[in-house]
Protein backbone atom coordinates (compact mmCIF):
# COMPACT_ATOMS: atom_id res chain seq x y z
CA UNK A 1 0.00 0.00 0.00
CA UNK A 2 1.46 3.30 -1.07
CA UNK A 3 0.71 5.09 2.17
CA UNK A 4 0.26 2.57 4.96
CA UNK A 5 -1.15 4.03 8.13
CA UNK A 6 0.79 3.02 11.25
CA UNK A 7 2.24 4.43 14.43
CA UNK A 8 5.42 5.18 12.45
CA UNK A 9 3.63 7.13 9.72
CA UNK A 10 1.83 9.06 12.46
CA UNK A 11 5.11 9.98 14.16
CA UNK A 12 6.79 10.81 10.85
CA UNK A 13 3.97 13.13 9.83
CA UNK A 14 3.89 14.76 13.24
CA UNK A 15 7.34 16.24 12.46
CA UNK A 16 5.88 18.07 9.46
CA UNK A 17 2.77 19.27 11.30
CA UNK A 18 0.63 16.68 9.47
CA UNK A 19 0.79 18.74 6.28
CA UNK A 20 2.20 16.02 4.06
CA UNK A 21 -0.40 13.26 4.32
CA UNK A 22 -1.32 11.94 0.89
CA UNK A 23 -4.97 12.25 -0.03
CA UNK A 24 -6.79 9.03 0.78
CA UNK A 25 -8.39 8.61 -2.66
CA UNK A 26 -8.11 10.27 -6.05
CA UNK A 27 -10.68 12.52 -7.67
CA UNK A 28 -10.54 11.22 -11.26
CA UNK A 29 -12.48 12.20 -14.34
CA UNK A 30 -14.75 9.42 -15.61
CA UNK A 31 -13.34 7.10 -18.27
CA UNK A 32 -15.43 6.41 -21.37
CA UNK A 33 -16.05 2.84 -20.42
CA UNK A 34 -15.90 0.60 -17.35
CA UNK A 35 -16.39 -3.14 -16.84
CA UNK A 36 -18.89 -2.33 -14.09
CA UNK A 37 -20.29 0.77 -12.44
CA UNK A 38 -21.71 0.91 -8.92
CA UNK A 39 -24.34 3.59 -8.35
CA UNK A 40 -24.14 4.94 -4.82
CA UNK A 41 -21.05 5.87 -2.83
CA UNK A 42 -22.24 4.85 0.59
CA UNK A 43 -20.73 2.10 2.70
CA UNK A 44 -22.46 -0.72 0.80
CA UNK A 45 -21.53 0.68 -2.63
CA UNK A 46 -17.90 1.32 -1.73
CA UNK A 47 -17.62 -2.10 -0.09
CA UNK A 48 -19.05 -3.69 -3.24
CA UNK A 49 -16.42 -1.93 -5.36
CA UNK A 50 -13.67 -2.89 -2.91
CA UNK A 51 -14.54 -6.61 -2.97
CA UNK A 52 -15.09 -6.59 -6.76
CA UNK A 53 -11.54 -5.34 -7.18
CA UNK A 54 -10.01 -7.37 -4.34
CA UNK A 55 -11.67 -10.76 -4.71
CA UNK A 56 -12.88 -10.80 -8.29
CA UNK A 57 -10.04 -8.87 -9.99
CA UNK A 58 -12.43 -6.38 -11.56
CA UNK A 59 -10.24 -3.29 -11.42
CA UNK A 60 -11.69 -1.28 -14.29
CA UNK A 61 -14.75 -0.21 -12.35
CA UNK A 62 -16.21 3.00 -10.94
CA UNK A 63 -18.46 4.16 -8.13
CA UNK A 64 -20.72 7.09 -9.04
CA UNK A 65 -22.13 9.21 -6.24
CA UNK A 66 -24.40 12.19 -6.69
CA UNK A 67 -23.18 13.94 -3.53
CA UNK A 68 -20.11 13.06 -1.53
CA UNK A 69 -19.20 9.59 -0.33
CA UNK A 70 -20.76 8.53 2.94
CA UNK A 71 -23.05 11.57 2.91
CA UNK A 72 -26.28 9.61 2.83
CA UNK A 73 -27.49 6.97 5.25
CA UNK A 74 -23.92 5.83 5.97
CA UNK A 75 -23.38 9.08 7.83
CA UNK A 76 -26.87 9.17 9.33
CA UNK A 77 -27.37 5.85 11.09
CA UNK A 78 -26.85 4.96 14.74
CA UNK A 79 -23.91 2.61 13.94
CA UNK A 80 -25.30 -0.50 15.64
CA UNK A 81 -23.87 -3.84 14.52
CA UNK A 82 -25.41 -7.18 15.52
CA UNK A 83 -26.40 -10.47 13.90
CA UNK A 84 -29.08 -11.85 16.23
CA UNK A 85 -31.71 -12.38 13.54
CA UNK A 86 -34.36 -15.05 13.80
CA UNK A 87 -34.40 -16.80 10.41
CA UNK A 88 -31.58 -18.95 9.07
CA UNK A 89 -31.16 -16.86 5.90
CA UNK A 90 -30.88 -13.62 7.87
CA UNK A 91 -28.61 -15.15 10.49
CA UNK A 92 -26.27 -16.34 7.73
CA UNK A 93 -26.24 -12.94 6.05
CA UNK A 94 -25.73 -10.77 9.12
CA UNK A 95 -23.26 -13.07 10.85
CA UNK A 96 -21.17 -13.18 7.67
CA UNK A 97 -21.05 -9.38 7.95
CA UNK A 98 -20.21 -9.51 11.65
CA UNK A 99 -17.29 -11.86 10.99
CA UNK A 100 -15.95 -9.43 8.38
CA UNK A 101 -16.35 -6.52 10.85
CA UNK A 102 -14.11 -8.39 13.28
CA UNK A 103 -11.12 -8.07 10.95
CA UNK A 104 -12.09 -4.97 9.03
CA UNK A 105 -9.69 -2.40 10.51
CA UNK A 106 -6.74 -4.68 9.70
CA UNK A 107 -8.14 -5.59 6.28
CA UNK A 108 -8.50 -1.94 5.28
CA UNK A 109 -5.54 -0.55 7.28
CA UNK A 110 -8.08 1.97 8.51
CA UNK A 111 -9.42 2.19 12.03
CA UNK A 112 -13.18 1.73 11.77
CA UNK A 113 -13.37 1.81 15.58
CA UNK A 114 -15.31 -1.44 15.72
CA UNK A 115 -16.23 -1.91 19.36
CA UNK A 116 -17.78 -5.19 20.50
CA UNK A 117 -19.52 -3.66 23.50
CA UNK A 118 -22.56 -5.91 23.22
CA UNK A 119 -26.13 -5.25 22.19
CA UNK A 120 -28.91 -5.88 24.66
CA UNK A 121 -32.55 -6.23 23.56
CA UNK A 122 -35.11 -5.66 26.29
CA UNK A 123 -38.42 -7.47 26.77
CA UNK A 124 -41.31 -5.40 28.10
CA UNK A 125 -44.24 -7.79 27.99
CA UNK A 126 -44.88 -11.54 28.03
CA UNK A 127 -44.95 -11.85 24.26
CA UNK A 128 -41.58 -10.07 24.09
CA UNK A 129 -40.20 -12.61 26.57
CA UNK A 130 -41.43 -15.54 24.47
CA UNK A 131 -40.22 -14.01 21.19
CA UNK A 132 -36.80 -13.07 22.52
CA UNK A 133 -36.25 -16.46 24.15
CA UNK A 134 -37.22 -18.16 20.92
CA UNK A 135 -34.83 -15.91 19.01
CA UNK A 136 -32.03 -16.70 21.49
CA UNK A 137 -32.49 -20.42 20.83
CA UNK A 138 -32.65 -19.87 17.06
CA UNK A 139 -29.45 -17.80 17.21
CA UNK A 140 -27.57 -20.45 19.16
CA UNK A 141 -28.65 -23.16 16.72
CA UNK A 142 -27.12 -20.99 14.00
CA UNK A 143 -23.86 -20.58 15.94
CA UNK A 144 -24.55 -16.98 16.91
CA UNK A 145 -23.78 -15.99 20.48
CA UNK A 146 -26.92 -15.05 22.39
CA UNK A 147 -27.96 -15.30 26.00
CA UNK A 148 -31.17 -14.61 27.88
CA UNK A 149 -30.85 -12.24 30.84
CA UNK A 150 -33.26 -11.97 33.78
CA UNK A 151 -34.32 -8.53 34.97
CA UNK A 152 -31.61 -8.63 37.65
CA UNK A 153 -28.98 -9.60 35.11
CA UNK A 154 -30.11 -6.72 32.86
CA UNK A 155 -29.70 -4.35 35.79
CA UNK A 156 -26.28 -5.74 36.54
CA UNK A 157 -25.12 -5.43 32.93
CA UNK A 158 -26.44 -1.89 32.53
CA UNK A 159 -27.08 -0.35 35.97
CA UNK A 160 -28.69 2.90 34.77
CA UNK A 161 -31.76 1.11 33.41
CA UNK A 162 -34.87 1.57 35.51
CA UNK A 163 -35.93 -2.01 36.27
CA UNK A 164 -38.65 -1.03 38.70
CA UNK A 165 -41.78 -3.08 38.00
CA UNK A 166 -44.16 -0.14 38.35
CA UNK A 167 -43.17 1.72 35.18
CA UNK A 168 -45.52 1.68 32.20
CA UNK A 169 -43.50 -0.97 30.31
CA UNK A 170 -41.42 -2.79 32.95
CA UNK A 171 -38.24 -4.64 31.98
CA UNK A 172 -39.04 -8.36 32.15
CA UNK A 173 -35.63 -9.48 30.91
CA UNK A 174 -33.58 -9.21 27.79
CA UNK A 175 -31.15 -10.83 25.41
CA UNK A 176 -27.49 -10.08 24.97
CA UNK A 177 -25.19 -10.58 22.01
CA UNK A 178 -21.69 -9.87 23.25
CA UNK A 179 -20.00 -9.91 19.85
CA UNK A 180 -22.33 -7.13 18.70
CA UNK A 181 -21.49 -3.46 19.11
CA UNK A 182 -20.82 -0.30 17.14
CA UNK A 183 -18.35 1.13 14.61
CA UNK A 184 -17.46 4.58 13.35
CA UNK A 185 -19.75 5.00 10.34
CA UNK A 186 -17.76 7.65 8.42
CA UNK A 187 -14.57 5.65 8.82
CA UNK A 188 -16.24 2.66 7.18
CA UNK A 189 -17.01 4.67 4.04
CA UNK A 190 -13.58 6.31 4.03
CA UNK A 191 -11.73 3.06 4.68
CA UNK A 192 -13.51 1.24 1.84
CA UNK A 193 -13.05 4.25 -0.46
CA UNK A 194 -9.32 4.34 0.25
CA UNK A 195 -9.02 0.59 -0.18
CA UNK A 196 -11.00 0.56 -3.43
CA UNK A 197 -9.08 3.53 -4.83
CA UNK A 198 -5.82 1.75 -4.04
CA UNK A 199 -7.03 -1.18 -6.16
CA UNK A 200 -7.75 1.12 -9.10
CA UNK A 201 -11.45 1.85 -8.60
CA UNK A 202 -12.50 5.34 -9.80
CA UNK A 203 -14.66 7.08 -7.20
CA UNK A 204 -16.67 9.73 -9.02
CA UNK A 205 -18.27 12.16 -6.59
CA UNK A 206 -20.76 14.87 -7.56
CA UNK A 207 -21.76 12.65 -10.46
CA UNK A 208 -25.49 12.06 -10.55
CA UNK A 209 -27.07 9.33 -12.67
CA UNK A 210 -29.78 10.82 -14.91
CA UNK A 211 -30.66 7.78 -16.95
CA UNK A 212 -29.94 4.08 -17.35
CA UNK A 213 -29.53 3.21 -21.01
CA UNK A 214 -30.31 -0.24 -22.25
CA UNK A 215 -30.61 -1.83 -25.65
CA UNK A 216 -33.24 -4.51 -25.63
CA UNK A 217 -32.81 -6.30 -22.36
CA UNK A 218 -29.12 -5.43 -21.95
CA UNK A 219 -27.49 -2.57 -20.05
CA UNK A 220 -25.54 -0.19 -22.31
CA UNK A 221 -24.44 2.54 -19.93
CA UNK A 222 -25.36 5.44 -17.73
CA UNK A 223 -26.32 9.04 -18.49
CA UNK A 224 -24.69 11.11 -15.79
CA UNK A 225 -24.09 14.77 -15.02
CA UNK A 226 -20.47 14.10 -16.11
CA UNK A 227 -21.51 12.65 -19.46
CA UNK A 228 -22.30 9.18 -20.79
CA UNK A 229 -20.45 6.26 -19.19
CA UNK A 230 -20.47 3.02 -21.14
CA UNK A 231 -20.71 -0.20 -19.14
CA UNK A 232 -22.30 -3.62 -19.37
CA UNK A 233 -22.82 -4.13 -15.66
CA UNK A 234 -24.52 -1.75 -13.25
CA UNK A 235 -24.94 -2.40 -9.54
CA UNK A 236 -27.41 -0.08 -7.88
CA UNK A 237 -26.86 0.55 -4.16
CA UNK A 238 -28.91 3.69 -3.72
CA UNK A 239 -30.90 3.03 -0.51
CA UNK A 240 -33.86 5.43 -0.34
CA UNK A 241 -33.55 6.34 -4.02
CA UNK A 242 -33.56 2.76 -5.32
CA UNK A 243 -37.08 3.08 -6.74
CA UNK A 244 -36.11 6.26 -8.60
CA UNK A 245 -33.22 4.45 -10.29
CA UNK A 246 -35.29 1.34 -10.95
CA UNK A 247 -37.82 3.56 -12.69
CA UNK A 248 -35.04 4.82 -15.03
CA UNK A 249 -34.49 1.22 -16.12
CA UNK A 250 -38.20 0.47 -16.37
CA UNK A 251 -38.14 -1.88 -13.39
CA UNK A 252 -40.61 -2.08 -10.50
CA UNK A 253 -39.48 -2.73 -6.93
CA UNK A 254 -41.46 -3.65 -3.81
CA UNK A 255 -40.03 -0.74 -1.82
CA UNK A 256 -41.36 2.21 0.12
CA UNK A 257 -39.00 5.02 1.13
CA UNK A 258 -39.65 6.48 4.55
CA UNK A 259 -37.94 8.89 6.93
CA UNK A 260 -36.03 7.40 9.85
CA UNK A 261 -34.76 9.72 12.54
CA UNK A 262 -31.92 9.76 15.00
CA UNK A 263 -30.56 12.26 17.47
CA UNK A 264 -27.57 12.87 19.69
CA UNK A 265 -27.28 14.57 23.03
CA UNK A 266 -24.63 16.89 24.37
CA UNK A 267 -21.47 14.93 25.25
CA UNK A 268 -21.16 13.60 28.79
CA UNK A 269 -18.77 11.34 30.67
CA UNK A 270 -19.05 7.57 30.05
CA UNK A 271 -22.39 6.41 31.41
CA UNK A 272 -23.54 3.55 29.18
CA UNK A 273 -20.96 1.07 27.87
CA UNK A 274 -23.23 -1.08 25.72
CA UNK A 275 -26.06 -0.69 23.22
CA UNK A 276 -29.59 -1.10 24.57
CA UNK A 277 -32.56 -1.61 22.26
CA UNK A 278 -36.21 -1.79 23.23
CA UNK A 279 -38.52 -3.10 20.58
CA UNK A 280 -41.83 -2.57 22.35
CA UNK A 281 -41.26 1.10 23.14
CA UNK A 282 -38.98 1.68 20.15
CA UNK A 283 -36.06 3.35 21.82
CA UNK A 284 -32.44 2.49 21.46
CA UNK A 285 -29.44 4.16 22.92
CA UNK A 286 -25.66 3.91 22.99
CA UNK A 287 -22.87 6.35 23.72
CA UNK A 288 -20.36 7.53 21.15
CA UNK A 289 -16.66 7.81 21.89
CA UNK A 290 -17.14 11.57 21.99
CA UNK A 291 -19.61 11.07 24.85
CA UNK A 292 -22.82 11.87 23.05
CA UNK A 293 -25.82 9.63 23.60
CA UNK A 294 -26.78 8.26 20.19
CA UNK A 295 -30.51 7.68 20.08
CA UNK A 296 -32.45 5.97 17.33
CA UNK A 297 -36.13 6.68 16.75
CA UNK A 298 -38.65 4.97 14.49
CA UNK A 299 -39.82 5.49 10.93
CA UNK A 300 -42.78 7.57 9.85
CA UNK A 301 -45.51 5.64 8.09
CA UNK A 302 -45.68 7.79 4.94
CA UNK A 303 -43.44 7.87 1.88
CA UNK A 304 -41.02 10.78 1.90
CA UNK A 305 -37.69 11.70 0.37
CA UNK A 306 -37.36 14.90 2.40
CA UNK A 307 -34.84 13.63 5.00
CA UNK A 308 -37.10 15.07 7.68
CA UNK A 309 -39.40 13.13 9.96
CA UNK A 310 -42.28 13.96 12.28
CA UNK A 311 -41.72 15.56 15.63
CA UNK A 312 -44.05 13.10 17.35
CA UNK A 313 -41.75 10.19 16.46
CA UNK A 314 -38.84 11.81 18.28
CA UNK A 315 -41.10 12.75 21.17
CA UNK A 316 -42.33 9.16 21.54
CA UNK A 317 -38.79 7.81 21.57
CA UNK A 318 -37.62 10.34 24.16
CA UNK A 319 -40.61 9.56 26.39
CA UNK A 320 -39.58 5.91 26.39
CA UNK A 321 -35.91 6.76 26.99
CA UNK A 322 -36.82 8.94 29.97
CA UNK A 323 -38.92 6.24 31.54
CA UNK A 324 -36.21 3.62 31.10
CA UNK A 325 -33.30 5.92 32.02
CA UNK A 326 -34.50 8.56 34.51
CA UNK A 327 -30.86 9.67 34.85
CA UNK A 328 -31.13 11.28 31.38
CA UNK A 329 -33.99 13.58 32.34
CA UNK A 330 -31.88 16.74 32.18
CA UNK A 331 -29.85 15.83 29.11
CA UNK A 332 -30.11 18.28 26.26
CA UNK A 333 -30.24 17.09 22.69
CA UNK A 334 -27.71 18.59 20.30
CA UNK A 335 -28.77 17.47 16.86
CA UNK A 336 -31.60 15.59 15.22
CA UNK A 337 -31.71 14.40 11.62
CA UNK A 338 -33.47 12.06 9.24
CA UNK A 339 -32.43 9.63 6.55
CA UNK A 340 -34.53 7.97 3.86
CA UNK A 341 -34.75 4.21 4.25
CA UNK A 342 -36.11 1.84 1.61
CA UNK A 343 -38.28 -0.78 3.24
CA UNK A 344 -39.27 -4.14 1.74
CA UNK A 345 -42.64 -5.70 2.62
CA UNK A 346 -40.80 -8.45 4.56
CA UNK A 347 -38.23 -6.06 6.06
CA UNK A 348 -35.38 -8.04 4.52
CA UNK A 349 -33.01 -6.73 1.87
CA UNK A 350 -32.75 -7.50 -1.84
CA UNK A 351 -29.28 -8.47 -3.13
CA UNK A 352 -30.12 -9.75 -6.54
CA UNK A 353 -29.91 -9.96 -10.29
CA UNK A 354 -32.89 -8.47 -12.09
CA UNK A 355 -34.85 -9.32 -15.21
CA UNK A 356 -32.56 -6.92 -17.10
CA UNK A 357 -29.21 -8.40 -18.16
CA UNK A 358 -26.33 -6.64 -16.42
CA UNK A 359 -28.49 -4.79 -13.90
CA UNK A 360 -28.18 -5.71 -10.22
CA UNK A 361 -29.88 -4.26 -7.18
CA UNK A 362 -28.76 -4.13 -3.57
CA UNK A 363 -31.56 -2.40 -1.70
CA UNK A 364 -34.37 -2.75 0.81
CA UNK A 365 -32.12 -2.65 3.88
CA UNK A 366 -34.72 -0.51 5.58
CA UNK A 367 -33.79 0.60 9.06
CA UNK A 368 -30.86 -1.77 9.58
CA UNK A 369 -28.36 -1.65 6.72
CA UNK A 370 -25.26 -0.31 8.41
CA UNK A 371 -24.53 -3.52 10.34
CA UNK A 372 -24.43 -5.47 7.10
CA UNK A 373 -22.06 -3.16 5.20
CA UNK A 374 -19.06 -5.53 4.73
CA UNK A 375 -21.20 -8.63 4.13
CA UNK A 376 -23.53 -6.80 1.78
CA UNK A 377 -20.60 -5.51 -0.28
CA UNK A 378 -18.92 -8.92 -0.35
CA UNK A 379 -22.04 -10.82 -1.44
CA UNK A 380 -23.16 -8.17 -3.94
CA UNK A 381 -19.68 -8.18 -5.50
CA UNK A 382 -19.92 -11.98 -5.80
CA UNK A 383 -23.36 -11.67 -7.44
CA UNK A 384 -22.17 -9.06 -9.95
CA UNK A 385 -18.90 -10.81 -10.80
CA UNK A 386 -20.44 -14.27 -11.28
CA UNK A 387 -23.89 -13.22 -12.42
CA UNK A 388 -25.10 -15.66 -9.77
CA UNK A 389 -25.84 -15.12 -6.09
CA UNK A 390 -23.59 -16.48 -3.34
CA UNK A 391 -25.38 -19.13 -1.25
CA UNK A 392 -25.65 -16.59 1.60
CA UNK A 393 -27.68 -14.12 -0.46
CA UNK A 394 -29.60 -16.58 -2.63
CA UNK A 395 -32.69 -16.20 -0.40
CA UNK A 396 -32.57 -12.42 -0.81
CA UNK A 397 -33.46 -12.45 -4.49
CA UNK A 398 -36.05 -10.22 -6.04
CA UNK A 399 -38.19 -13.16 -7.18
CA UNK A 400 -39.20 -14.01 -3.64
CA UNK A 401 -42.04 -11.51 -4.00
CA UNK A 402 -43.39 -13.60 -6.87
CA UNK A 403 -42.72 -17.04 -5.38
CA UNK A 404 -43.88 -16.00 -1.90
CA UNK A 405 -40.71 -17.33 -0.28
CA UNK A 406 -40.30 -14.24 1.91
CA UNK A 407 -37.74 -13.75 4.69
CA UNK A 408 -40.16 -12.24 7.14
CA UNK A 409 -38.09 -10.39 9.73
CA UNK A 410 -40.77 -7.88 10.72
CA UNK A 411 -40.48 -7.57 14.46
CA UNK A 412 -38.76 -10.95 14.61
CA UNK A 413 -35.40 -9.24 14.30
CA UNK A 414 -36.02 -7.75 17.72
CA UNK A 415 -36.50 -4.26 16.45
CA UNK A 416 -39.71 -2.72 15.16
CA UNK A 417 -39.50 -1.79 11.48
Amino acid at each position, binding site marked *: MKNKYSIFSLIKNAFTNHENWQRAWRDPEPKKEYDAVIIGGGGHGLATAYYLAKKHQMNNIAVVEKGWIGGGNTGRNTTIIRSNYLWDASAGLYDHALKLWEGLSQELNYNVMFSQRGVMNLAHNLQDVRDLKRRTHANRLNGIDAVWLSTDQVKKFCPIINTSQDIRYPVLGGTLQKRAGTARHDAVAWGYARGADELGVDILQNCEVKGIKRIGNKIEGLETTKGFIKTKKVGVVAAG*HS*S*VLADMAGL*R*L*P*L*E*SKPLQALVSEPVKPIIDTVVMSNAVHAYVSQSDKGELVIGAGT*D*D*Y*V*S*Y*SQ*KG*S*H*EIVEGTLQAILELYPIFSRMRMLRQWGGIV*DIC*PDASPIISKTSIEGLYFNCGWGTGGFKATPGSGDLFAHTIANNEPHKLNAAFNINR*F*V*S*GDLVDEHGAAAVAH
Partner: protein
Amino acid sequence: MFIINCPYCGEREQSEFKAGGEAHIVRPKQPTELSDDEWAEYLFMRKNIKGIQLERWVHIHGCRKWFNMVRDTSNDQIHAVYKMGEKPPIK
Protein backbone atom coordinates in the same frame (compact mmCIF):
# COMPACT_ATOMS: atom_id res chain seq x y z
CA MET B 1 -45.15 17.85 11.37
CA PHE B 2 -47.71 18.98 8.88
CA ILE B 3 -51.35 20.04 9.08
CA ILE B 4 -53.74 17.83 7.14
CA ASN B 5 -57.09 19.06 5.89
CA CYS B 6 -59.42 16.12 6.52
CA PRO B 7 -62.26 16.39 3.99
CA TYR B 8 -64.71 15.59 6.80
CA CYS B 9 -63.27 17.38 9.85
CA GLY B 10 -61.10 20.20 8.50
CA GLU B 11 -57.54 21.01 9.46
CA ARG B 12 -55.96 18.79 12.09
CA GLU B 13 -52.45 17.84 13.14
CA GLN B 14 -50.74 15.02 11.28
CA SER B 15 -50.45 13.01 14.50
CA GLU B 16 -54.21 12.31 14.26
CA PHE B 17 -53.73 10.58 10.93
CA LYS B 18 -52.17 7.41 9.59
CA ALA B 19 -50.78 6.95 6.10
CA GLY B 20 -52.15 4.05 4.06
CA GLY B 21 -49.74 3.98 1.15
CA GLU B 22 -50.20 4.35 -2.60
CA ALA B 23 -53.75 5.14 -3.74
CA HIS B 24 -55.79 3.75 -6.65
CA ILE B 25 -54.37 0.22 -6.54
CA VAL B 26 -57.37 -1.70 -7.79
CA ARG B 27 -58.20 -4.99 -6.14
CA PRO B 28 -58.23 -7.76 -8.77
CA LYS B 29 -61.75 -8.58 -9.94
CA GLN B 30 -60.93 -12.26 -10.48
CA PRO B 31 -58.33 -13.20 -7.83
CA THR B 32 -58.42 -16.87 -8.78
CA GLU B 33 -57.34 -16.05 -12.35
CA LEU B 34 -54.20 -14.14 -11.33
CA SER B 35 -50.71 -15.40 -12.15
CA ASP B 36 -47.95 -15.23 -9.51
CA ASP B 37 -46.47 -12.22 -11.31
CA GLU B 38 -49.77 -10.37 -11.20
CA TRP B 39 -50.19 -11.16 -7.51
CA ALA B 40 -46.69 -9.83 -6.78
CA GLU B 41 -47.52 -6.68 -8.75
CA TYR B 42 -50.75 -6.14 -6.82
CA LEU B 43 -49.46 -7.05 -3.35
CA PHE B 44 -45.90 -5.80 -3.29
CA MET B 45 -44.75 -3.61 -6.18
CA ARG B 46 -45.05 0.13 -5.51
CA LYS B 47 -44.38 3.29 -7.49
CA ASN B 48 -42.66 4.92 -4.49
CA ILE B 49 -42.50 8.20 -6.40
CA LYS B 50 -40.13 11.02 -5.56
CA GLY B 51 -42.38 13.96 -6.36
CA ILE B 52 -46.16 14.20 -6.70
CA GLN B 53 -47.76 11.04 -5.36
CA LEU B 54 -51.40 10.01 -4.85
CA GLU B 55 -51.86 8.26 -1.54
CA ARG B 56 -54.42 7.10 1.01
CA TRP B 57 -54.68 8.45 4.53
CA VAL B 58 -57.05 7.72 7.40
CA HIS B 59 -58.14 10.11 10.15
CA ILE B 60 -57.51 7.36 12.69
CA HIS B 61 -57.80 9.49 15.83
CA GLY B 62 -60.71 11.54 14.46
CA CYS B 63 -63.60 10.58 12.21
CA ARG B 64 -61.81 7.32 11.23
CA LYS B 65 -62.67 7.91 7.58
CA TRP B 66 -60.32 7.15 4.68
CA PHE B 67 -59.54 9.74 2.02
CA ASN B 68 -56.95 10.42 -0.68
CA MET B 69 -54.21 12.99 -0.86
CA VAL B 70 -51.98 14.58 -3.51
CA ARG B 71 -48.61 15.12 -1.87
CA ASP B 72 -45.10 15.98 -3.00
CA THR B 73 -42.87 13.38 -1.36
CA SER B 74 -39.72 15.40 -2.07
CA ASN B 75 -40.76 18.20 0.29
CA ASP B 76 -43.86 16.81 2.08
CA GLN B 77 -46.08 19.58 0.71
CA ILE B 78 -49.76 18.64 0.45
CA HIS B 79 -51.40 19.87 -2.76
CA ALA B 80 -54.94 18.54 -2.36
CA VAL B 81 -57.15 16.12 -0.49
CA TYR B 82 -60.13 14.37 -2.03
CA LYS B 83 -62.67 11.80 -0.93
CA MET B 84 -62.59 8.10 -1.70
CA GLY B 85 -64.22 7.37 -5.03
CA GLU B 86 -63.47 10.82 -6.44
CA LYS B 87 -61.10 11.42 -9.33
CA PRO B 88 -57.71 12.95 -8.42
CA PRO B 89 -57.85 16.75 -8.84
CA ILE B 90 -54.70 16.67 -10.97
CA LYS B 91 -53.77 14.41 -13.90
